[in-house]
């Protein structure tokens, strides 16, 4: 089967790759481009560990075909911050312990960032429903929600 040639932008950098037509975006991100910060937990769009942004829209990258990334802007956890310049969400998740094992953390951070860009003052309930697509089995969500609330406040204060 002939492979497809795809040109896309990931975290601001241009990437080119070849993939089979049925390969998912998460598969290519991880296994072809070795951007393994995006996690694959279910491959059916139920756990949210593979959350990325595509042209400003929050998507499960396991439900997006890699060829659909052609010409698009993709943002992954690798583009969210650096050790010296953490995103407020990353900072608060560390301080408040919004992560335990950390496998769901990249997906939750990407999803929470999308929320705060749309709504800088979400209620607890709005955060819980927004993140209902991101499973976490360690934390019971309490400190996840508190981390998002604290980061929202930081961002409002600028």
């Amino acid at each position, binding site marked *: 089967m002939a492979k497809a040639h795809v040109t896309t932008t990931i975290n601001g950098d241009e990437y080119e790759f070849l993939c089979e037509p049925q390969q998912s975006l998460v598969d290519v991100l991880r296994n072809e481009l070795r951007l*393994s910060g995006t996690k694959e937990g*279910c491959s059916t769009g139920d756990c949210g560990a593979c959350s990325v942004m595509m042209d400003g829209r929050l998507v499960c990258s396991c439900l997006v075909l890699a060829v659909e990334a052609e010409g698009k802007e993709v943002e992954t956890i690798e583009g969210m911050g650096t050790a010296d310049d953490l995103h407020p969400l990353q900072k608060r998740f560390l301080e408040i*312990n919004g992560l335990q*094992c*950390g*496998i769901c953390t990249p997906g939750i951070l990407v999803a929470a960032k999308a929320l705060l860009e749309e709504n800088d003052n979400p209620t607890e309930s709005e955060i819980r429903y927004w993140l209902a697509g991101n499973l976490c089995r360690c934390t019971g969500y309490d400190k996840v929600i508190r981390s998002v609330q604290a980061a929202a406040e930081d961002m409002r204060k600028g």
Partner: protein
Amino acid sequence: MATILEESGFNPDADLKVVGTNPVKHDGLDKVLGRAKFGADAYLPGMLYGKILRSPHAHAIIKSIDTSKAEALPGVKAVITSADFPEIPQGTGWGDMSRNTIAREKALFDGHPVAAVAATSEQVAKRACKLVEVEYEVLPHVIDVEDAMAEGAPILHDYMRTKGDENALDVPTNVCEKMVSKLGDVAVGFEAADCVVEHEFDSKPMHQGYIEPQGCIADYSEDGLVEVWTCTQAPFVYRDRLSAVLKIDAAKINVQQSELGGGFGGKTGFYAEPLAIILSKKASAPVKMTLTRAEVFRGTGPVSGTKSRIKMGCTKDGKITAAEADLYFQTGPYTGSMYFNAPNAMFTRYELENVYIEAYEVVSNRPKVNSFRAPCVPQIVFGVEGIIDEMAKKVGMDPIDFRLKNAAKEGHTTIYGDTWGPVGFIETLEAAKETDHYKTPVKDGEGRGISCGFWFNRGGETSSTMTLAPDGTVTIATGTADVAGSRISIAMMAAEELGISVDKVRVRMADTNSLGFNRVTAGSRTTFSVGMVVVDNARKCITELCRRAANIWGVAEEEVVYEDGQVKPASSNVGDFEPMSVGEITSKTTMTNGAIVSSSSMNVTGAGPGFGVNIVDLKVDEGTGRVDVLRWTVVQDAGKAIHPVQVEGQLQGAAIQGMGWALNEEYIYTDEGKLDNPGFLDYRMPVASDAPMVDCKIVEIPNPKHPFGLRGVGEVPVVPTMAAVGNAITDAIGIRPTSLPMSPPKLLKLIEERDAG
């Protein structure tokens, strides 16, 4: 060999500087940046991809396997079946483990591996699996315990006879083991009771539900050395089991644990690793294997489903006089459920004189169960604490007062023969009474449930090394896996003992070549046991630091002391020497006999039991049977919380796992014995919008056998969860659910029965 620090050095009045604070965990930064490497995040040059072919039948004889078409597919480098593994006799521990890895004579559950393929891509490996031709003779299957014990039930193993049952006939059975536990005379106890409550209960298997599917890479080198990278709670146990099952010397196998994306007990036993090793050997290349979510559900350990009958009696003033139970545990196709924890723990926390428990472990055509926080206990405590709740109501007592009246304390001898040192059950119950939650009246239309739980907490073999670098910073290598943040707590205990900042300490998860044996991370043993050996490491290093400083100053070792991270002259008579910091001494090790390193290995004992109380408020929609949990408080004795925020995380996570098990999570089988819900859409774990915030109150009744007084905290908090939800539902709808999960259809049926009178 030491089993405990001879002098734990526990000092209740110690002025602790690091322990009890909440520093950011050292592994956190990589995790928020997406840089942490989990099981599936490693790649090796020349790596192949492995896939598993699994049985579509619940019970079938494997008559033949033809791999020739799969082998002929371009890109396929190896195809393996059980014929590629050493044959180990059936009915033995290693024989079961080998057959659970890859079916030999029979496939025993839907999803049982029968063959595996390594190929140049996952896509090719998947296609090759479809080309493997397996001829099955399908046999009648059995899924549930009652059916498996019935006369004429399909038998899984012709060789099986019930262990521990002296009346068992010499005929094949599905009952692996029977265990009887007793104290006093229950007939006398029930005679003395004014109130007797008895119910039958059942529960379904739930899955540990870690978000990271199993992922590993195995590299079998041409000279017979095996490197394994994997997400595991048990690198050393994996190594030794791989050695036994594959008949490879343990010294030739090196297991390096990756970051672990959740385990909860489910990553204490291997699945793909032996297959990856044999594929790698056959293909002469590294092989990476990651399970899909469906494979995780079908092929890896859920917990035991159960049936039970529990009966308890008490006097009218609330003293429990007798407790009796029959317990039946699913174990999957092989023994190993740890069902014995249930009789040992179900009533333990109460002062009881008369107890009789019969417990049975039963095989059936389900995946072999694996550990989950407090294995086999929470689903039985669901019944026990439900009955206690009912007894308290019947005799007109507050549920916490009823439990206080029967609470065991220091000096109590348990049904399994231990006599307790200081324990905090009474203090935990009293703290629960004082919570804002308990003092707030239940709102109209809501129900409130109280429940409590006990867990043994464990120690076990633990090894670590401490290395002081020339700049005075400290590296600790430990092999007891960090499953949710234990590294920071270990670093904190080392920093406290050394009198230095926690920023100067790093804890590394060592590979099995670099360290002595470490037991699995299980039994809430990690922070407790590793804390013990790390304090021993620190004390040895301190002795050596003193020796080196004395040597530099030309004075006797006894003439120096170590305080707050510095060596000082013991008195002004010794001489006029400026105190030397750790870094000042380690920077001079070239002159003083080389690096300062210490090693410690112990089979740690002295773990202190833990107790927890849950208070849950919820609302039941009587039109649909849906439950909304609105408020949840966990009170637990941690002995000493090394990192209180991490402890809270354990309590909160356990509460919501228990909520899922209580309300939704279950394995559903078709009539053909196939798992019908192997995905997160149909196997419904709690999501953020299902859960309330979880308030925590940490009680600290120190365990004096530990240098900082700590008790394990990871398992206790799941024990009371389902009973607390069950008791709250009972309070809300006036009728007791006895079947887990308490899902909407079941509650709706109870409500309809109630309304029909």
